[in-house]
């Protein structure tokens, strides 16, 4: 018993104070939100498109201006940035990436608009669902072909550093106890029926969260006959969290935005202790 108490003293209190305080620092080499520098593309250059393994990079019909990036297909491998001859395309450490709609994951440098386009971050649930889930959100996880990285970095949010229990978020063992699903993986053919049945077993009203490139678009497995290009092929999705895998802070930020704990009324403690947003 004494040893247990000694260990407790040694380990200390480790739960982060975010979102009340700034978020913890992410790795300095983290490949987060891409940055498209205005006017940086050489005429006719398609190096980023050619380097991308999943077709996340495209160019508009006008053939002017920079590329369009689909963060739902993006593996954040930065092969596009490595290929770019003028560093017009780079990856920042911006970890806030979650959106409510699939189309909000597509950032455009080839149309008029902000010079450094960003995703439209997720808004909170509508008032009816906020009343039900805002302080108690029970989720059932379904891995439908996930490689275990998204699963692991979702699971980590239950550990003492992050502790999503303090937001009323809990993972439950059965869909009948759940308010929604958190789906990873491209939805393999062999998991399609299980996912459908699990979704059907969740009582209404329910929400669905898709975590990772596979769950949003199929990721590396796009176009495979054995998979279905993501969760939206089977169920409606309410929150998209891109990454391969997304950093736990990206996942948590997405969940907290959905629950109106972050990003409401312009208050966004997404900037970290280092002062950078």
């Amino acid at each position, binding site marked *: 018993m004494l040893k247990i108490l000694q260990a407790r003293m040694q380990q200390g209190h480790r739960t982060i104070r975010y979102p009340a305080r700034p978020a913890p620092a992410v790795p300095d080499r983290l490949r987060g939100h891409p940055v498209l520098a205005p006017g940086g593309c050489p005429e006719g250059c398609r190096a980023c498109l050619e380097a991308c393994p999943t077709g996340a990079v495209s160019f508009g019909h006008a053939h002017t201006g920079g590329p369009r990036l689909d963060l739902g297909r993006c593996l954040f491998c930065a092969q596009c940035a490595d290929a770019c001859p003028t560093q017009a395309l780079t990856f920042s450490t911006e970890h806030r990436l979650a959106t409510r709609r699939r189309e909000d994951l597509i950032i455009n440098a080839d149309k008029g608009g902000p010079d450094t386009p960003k995703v439209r971050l997720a808004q909170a649930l509508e008032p009816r669902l906020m009343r039900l889930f805002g302080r108690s959100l029970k989720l059932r996880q379904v891995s439908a072909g996930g*490689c275990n990285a998204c*699963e692991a970095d979702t699971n980590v949010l239950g550990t003492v550093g992050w502790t999503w229990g303090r937001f009323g978020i809990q993972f439950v063992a059965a869909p009948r106890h759940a308010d929604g699903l958190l789906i990873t993986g491209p939805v393999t053919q062999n998991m399609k029926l299980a996912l459908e049945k699990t979704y059907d077993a969740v009582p209404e009203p329910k929400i669905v969260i898709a975590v990772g490139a596979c769950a949003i678009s199929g990721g590396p497995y796009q176009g495979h006959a054995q998979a279905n290009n993501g969760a939206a092929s089977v169920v409606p999705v309410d929150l998209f969290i891109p990454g391969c895998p997304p950093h736990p802070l990206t996942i948590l930020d997405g969940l907290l935005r959905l629950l109106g704990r972050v990003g409401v009324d312009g208050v966004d403690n997404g900037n970290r202790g280092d002062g950078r947003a």
Partner: protein
Amino acid sequence: MSASAALRSFTNGWSIDQASIPLLDQDAFAQVLLDAVAEGQRVVALFGAQERDAVALYAVLGNDEDNLLCAARTNITGAGFASLTPRCPQVHLFEREIAEQFGLVPQGHPWLKPVRYQPSWTGRDAWGRAVGVEIPPGVGDFYHLDGEEVHEVAVGPVHAGIIEPGHFRFQCLGEPVQHLEIALGYQHRGVEQAMLGGPHPRSVHYAETLAGDATIAHTTSYCQVLESLSRCQKTARSQTLRGIALELERLANHVGDLGALAGDVGFLPTASYCGRIRGDVLNMTALLCGSRFGRGMIRPGGVGFDLDMDRCTALLIQLDAFDADVHAAINLLWSTPSVMARFEGTGPLSRQAALELGLVGPAARASGLARDVRQDQPCGVFRFAHIPASAVDSGDVFARAYVRWLEIHQSLRFVREQLRAMPAGARQTPLGPLAPDSFVVALNEGWRGEVCHVALTDATGRFRRYKVVDASFRNWSGLAYALRGQQISDFPLCNKSFNLSYCGFDL
């Protein structure tokens, strides 16, 4: 003539001409394989590959004592071949896989069932199913016990926690499990097929995600395949960085597993601390390459990221903190009677069973089989820096936990030594063209055990067959066997003590 003389020998990661692999008739092939196993070799891979007029079966054997691999092949022109499983149990799943992928029936196989519930690649189906008909996963005859008091428990594919899917069918008489049968295939994404004609732009990403928590091990094997085929000479520095990344991956997962095992027996102190400490190790991997799972770290020709002196120092400081934290957290396990009472004697797997099933990794080492690729078939930095294999022999949950603890010590020591003595050099060497008509085997000791990639190239140097054997492909059978006679309530604990990959098996 000894078996070795009839086989083509080569080393891990060294490509050879396909034509140099002896082409034997079916009987000679079978005999050579059986003789090799009788002599103490083990089956590293047994798989099919489409030839022009036949399906070739390739056998890769591991001669761990001599640190060599050997290979032989035979051509199957008919509808099947004589199963070797009755005389050599460790090939049981390989033969089922050949049946499923190529439609060849291994006659006399004692348990010929699908592996991944996928359609055949050749249009010929080993179970006579019509082409194009949907194959529902997990549907079929399970081993069944009859009796008034027998009850059958089915779990999955969707499991209670945040975990990949699989189906477990228990036959129970009261609490004790008489038999466990595991049906997988739910995660099948078609990786081996997608690798054909490669390397493609996505190939490295398949390697990184085919078992996404063992990214470093699998991507290292994939890159070694390419490097071997192009005779690329990597720098000592890049090989050292690869070794560091691999051992950090092992550290993170072993710490996580020990925490999860503590959680499964309701011992929250260690469970809580290890849940966090695992994240600290993942953050060390992210310090190297920006990704907690090592995405982008291993690239053909070397590594994607280098370490400067400041980063090395930062890592060493983090490792010191990790050392103190992990000792405080994990030593509690061995001195807490309630934990040891649950761990000891639970889920025992004898050395003989582990040998016959062909187990690898910590599960094998916990049953006294001291096999480890870093020691037996070393490649990369492990040819120069020796990590002794950690083995325990009780074969129970305690042994599988304690082996991980021993390996945490070894990996920590290794990473510190390498960081303090990093050789100079570039982080990446360009690759040349890939050799045509070649055959290469790249093995690495992933944290679950041996990861095996085998590639065959065509006349243009592109992959005409790519075989992946994750440690889980061998070890799931070990879990099923270890559950016999155990209480069903100990299943989560036994499962966690193996902690196998579903997607690594399903590909």
